[in-house]
């Protein structure tokens, strides 16, 4: 990639995000021109204002937040495990969040308090992370890492099935659970935006970790010998990844492969330096999810989780082939 393009990567990424956001606000049953979007945002056009403020804007915000959370989460997990195939989805951390959320809905806590779902998603995700750590040590081979992920994903899938089959659920609760399993952005409200909003704070905490992540991703002892407080860094990375995956799952269900695809494409284009990759992932992750959501809407209402899996599945297999 030419040097001038390398240097302007970040402004270009912001531009792409802006265009994707504009497309997401414009496209729908009621197509809106940029002028009408502007009028709608300022409440000068009642119909546009209703569509934007009640439907498209919250949806856009949730898409951007989970995109940032999942791709930064993937980047951190890859540095932590020193394996470019690690991500919250493949290792079962997202599934832990989903299982937590499903239990909260199934048990009826979700109706009692709006923080019940994100809170139990966080608990579920942390339990899953603990399990991953037991089975796959840092620097573990790809095989071991993926096998641990398969086992954990299967186990957590069984938890979800158990909740679905054993709770005497109302039709509405069952539908909510199915929604979580599919992953989607339909009917997202400002409540969901608020739930996912801590992702912004967490993202700000990740940026200064970029440089030590560079060193850690080439070896723990080496990093420590060069002056990194490895223990503290590892704890921070793990806590941040888990929180991000849990929050993303709590508001949009299981959306797979984002944490794998975005860091990989960025690495291919801009090299391995986390100093640069972290800010880029925080901008390009949202762009990717917004575009995937748009593709789903173009295709007549495909859910987000289905679109990312359709793209991510083959991409992952390609990576696996390239790696061996």
């Amino acid at each position, binding site marked *: 990639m030419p040097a001038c393009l390398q240097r302007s990567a970040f402004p270009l990424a912001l531009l792409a995000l802006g265009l994707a956001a504009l497309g997401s606000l414009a496209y729908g049953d009621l197509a809106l021109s940029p002028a009408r979007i502007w009028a709608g945002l300022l409440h000068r056009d009642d119909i546009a204002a209703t569509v934007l403020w009640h439907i498209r804007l919250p949806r856009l915000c949730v898409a951007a937040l989970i995109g940032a959370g999942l791709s930064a989460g993937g980047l951190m997990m890859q540095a932590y495990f020193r394996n470019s195939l690690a991500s919250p989805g493949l290792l079962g951390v997202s599934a832990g969040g989903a299982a937590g959320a499903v239990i909260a809905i199934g048990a009826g806590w979700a109706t009692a308090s709006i923080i019940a779902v994100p809170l139990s998603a966080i608990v579920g995700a942390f339990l899953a992370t603990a399990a991953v750590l037991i089975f796959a040590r840092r620097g573990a081979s790809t095989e071991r890492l993926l096998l641990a992920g398969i086992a954990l994903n299967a186990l957590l899938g069984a938890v979800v099935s158990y909740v679905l089959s054993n709770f005497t659920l109302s039709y509405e609760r069952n539908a909510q659970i199915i929604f979580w399993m599919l992953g989607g952005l339909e009917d997202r409200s400002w409540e969901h935006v608020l739930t996912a909003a801590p992702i912004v704070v967490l993202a700000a905490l990740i940026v200064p970790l970029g440089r030590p992540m560079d060193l850690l991703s080439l070896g723990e002892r080496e990093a420590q010998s060069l002056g990194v407080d490895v223990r503290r860094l590892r704890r921070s990375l793990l806590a941040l990844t888990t929180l991000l995956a849990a929050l993303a799952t709590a508001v949009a269900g299981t959306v797979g492969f984002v944490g794998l695809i975005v860091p990989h494409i960025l690495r291919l284009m801009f*090299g391995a330096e986390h100093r640069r990759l972290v800010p880029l992932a925080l901008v390009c992750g949202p762009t990717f999810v917004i575009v995937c959501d748009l593709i789903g809407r173009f295709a007549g209402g495909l859910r987000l989780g289905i679109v990312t899996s359709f793209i991510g599945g083959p991409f992952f297999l390609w990576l696996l082939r390239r790696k061996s």
Partner: protein
Amino acid sequence: MNALTLDAISVPDRLHDISLALPPGVLVGLIGPNGSGKSTLLQVAGGLLASSGRVAWNDRPLNSIPFLERGRLAAWIPQEAHFEFGFSVRSVVAQGRYAYQDDEYGVDAALAALDLAPLADRPVNRLSGGERQRVLLARALVTGAPLQLWDEPLAPLDPRHALEVLRNARRLTRDGHTVVLSLHDLRAAHSLDTVIVLDHGRLRAVGKPAEVLTPDLLLSVFGVRVGREPGFTFELP
């Protein structure tokens, strides 16, 4: 003052009660058969592995030195380098300046010293074993750390690069740095200032090579008899 002090170091099943002190400005060879604890000892000396006993750098107890400052005081190189990600050679070498706010000082000189300038833009995960080892050595050099701990740096290198690494080590010790390197090449060990002999996790001997590497010791520790056949010797042109 001692550059490195180890006092009653033990690591269960690997090292038993090792005490030694190294003055600044010496080139030290750490020798011993496979599994004798060389790598473990270097990691303990670098503050990278917990042990009982006491480690001190420049007479300062290690546990009183903050992590960032440790990055300026000692550099450690593993026996084998595995690079998962495609950082460029130059950027990996520049990581040696992490403890100095990444000022890039000395990076070009270190690349040149290890013959890496032509490879500077290559991704490290596409290098051969010997090239990877030289990248790690260059990264250790740019830290400018007065204590250098190298775990078998010569093993994957071709003869000329191995000699150059020894010349670099010699240059460092002339500037007052202390270099400890583990090695299996007893002939090379013979040319160093000091040798440390480990056997089954115990300290067998420390001292000048001519005094320590006696035929009796070599036979009992390594199970080899010293030959006096001239054979080949190699040196830089």
